[in-house]
C-alpha cells in the first residue's frame, strides 16, 4: 500500500470513530443555552473540532428528536438561535454518558491487555 492510501484510510477510520461521539460532545455542552458559534468555540477549547456543515444539521436533528429545544433571541444586535437540553434530552444524555464511560473503561482494559501481551 502506498503512503497516501494509508493516510486516507486512517483518516476515514478516525472520522468513523469520532462520528458517534459528536452527539455526546454536543449534548454535553447544552446544559446551558448556547448558540451555534459559541458551541463551536467551547468544543474547540476542549480540542474537539467539528465541521460546521455537520454541527448545524446535527442540532436540527437533535431538536427534531426532542432532545434539545431552540429559541431565537432577538434582544441583542444580532438575532441568535439558542439551543438547550430538554428534560428528555437531559435524561438521554445521562444514560449516554454512562454508556460512554462503560465503553471507555472496557476498551481501556482491552487495549492495556494488548500492550502487556506485546511486551511479553
Amino acid at each position, binding site marked *: 500500500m502506498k503512503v497516501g492510501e494509508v493516510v486516507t484510510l486512517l483518516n476515514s477510520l478516525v472520522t468513523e470513530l469520532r462520528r458517534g461521539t459528536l452527539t455526546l460532545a454536543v449534548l454535553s455542552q447544552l446544559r446551558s443555552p448556547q448558540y451555534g458559534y459559541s458551541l463551536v468555540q467551547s468544543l474547540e477549547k476542549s480540542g474537539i473540532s467539528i465541521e*460546521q*456543515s455537520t454541527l*448545524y444539521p446535527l442540532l436540527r*436533528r437533535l431538536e*427534531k428528536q426532542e432532545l434539545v429545544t431552540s429559541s431565537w433571541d432577538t434582544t441583542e444586535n*444580532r*438575532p*441568535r438561535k439558542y439551543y438547550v437540553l430538554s428534560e428528555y434530552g437531559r435524561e438521554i444524555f445521562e444514560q449516554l454518558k454512562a454508556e460512554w464511560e462503560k465503553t471507555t473503561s472496557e476498551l481501556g482494559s482491552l487495549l492495556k491487555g494488548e500492550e502487556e501481551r506485546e511486551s511479553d
Partner: protein
Amino acid sequence: MNLIETYIGEVTRRLPESNREDIALELRSTIGDMLPENPSEEDVKSVLNELGSPVQMANGFRDWPMHLIGPQYFEHYVKLLKIVMPIALTVTFILFMTANVIDYTGTETIGAVFFHLLGDAISGLWNTFIQTLFWITLVFAVLERTNLKVTESCSTWSADELLKMTPPPKKKKISKFELFSDLLFAAVWATLYYNAEHLLGIIRNGTLDVPFFNNDVLLSYWPLVSLALLTAVLLALYKILVGYWTQRLAIANAVHHVFATAVVVMMLLNERLIHDDFTKFLSLSETLQNALLAAVGLFFVISAAIDIGKGFWKAKL
C-alpha cells in the same frame, strides 16, 4: 456582504421551502459571529471557506434520503427485476412475432420481412426494457420515501425464525412458467382488447372484413378492463414477492378473478357488443347466438372458478 448572501442562497435553494427561512437566519447569524468587526472581503472568504461547500452544508440539512432505493428494499428490487425482465422481454417478443405474422400480406420478400421484423423487435424490446425498469424503479423509490413497512423489519430477527422457515412444499411453489403465462395472458388480452378493430374478426385478403365486436361498445368498458389488467399484473408481482401459495395470495387471486370475470360477463350481456355484420355472417337464430354467448361466458366463469379453487387448495397444502 454580497458573498454571504450568495452563499446562503446556494445552501437554501437546495432545501425544502419550509425550512429555508429559519436556516438562512441561523447561517447569517453564525457568519456574523465568526466575522471580526468591519470585515474585509478576505475575512468573509476565510469564514465561508471554514463553513465549507454549500452543497455539503445543504446535504447535511436534508432529512430526505440521498439515495433512490436503500438497503431495506434493494434486495427485493433486484429480485423483482431479475424475474420480471426476462418475462416481459419474452412476452414482447412473442407479441411482435404474432403481430407481424398476422400483418404479413405476402407482397414483401422474405429478406425485407426479416429486416423489418428485426428492426421492430429490437425497438419493441428496448421499449419494454426501459418501461419495465422505469416503473419498477419508480414503485421502489416511492416505497423508500414512505414509511410503509412492507417487509418485516430485520431488527427483531431471532434464530427462532429459522425454525419457522421450513421450505414450503414443492407443490405450493409458484413456478416461473405460471408467472410467465400469467403475464403473457395479460399482455395478450391487452393487445387483443385495445387493437380489436384490427385483430378480432374474420380477415380476408389481409384486411379485417367482418368484425366480431362493435368497437365503440367494446372500448366503452376501458376503465374496467384496464383495472382488471392492472390487478392481473399486480397479482403476478405479488406472486413473485411471496414465491408460494398462501391464504392471503389465494384471497387476492380470488378477488382478481371475480372482478375480471364480472367485467367479461358484463360486456357479454351488452346487446350491442356483437357487430351486426358478424351476426349476419353467422346467420344463427337469436336464441342460438345468445346460447353461444352464454357458453362463452360460462367458460370464463368456470375457468375462473377452477383457478380460484386451485389457489385455495395449494394454500392449504
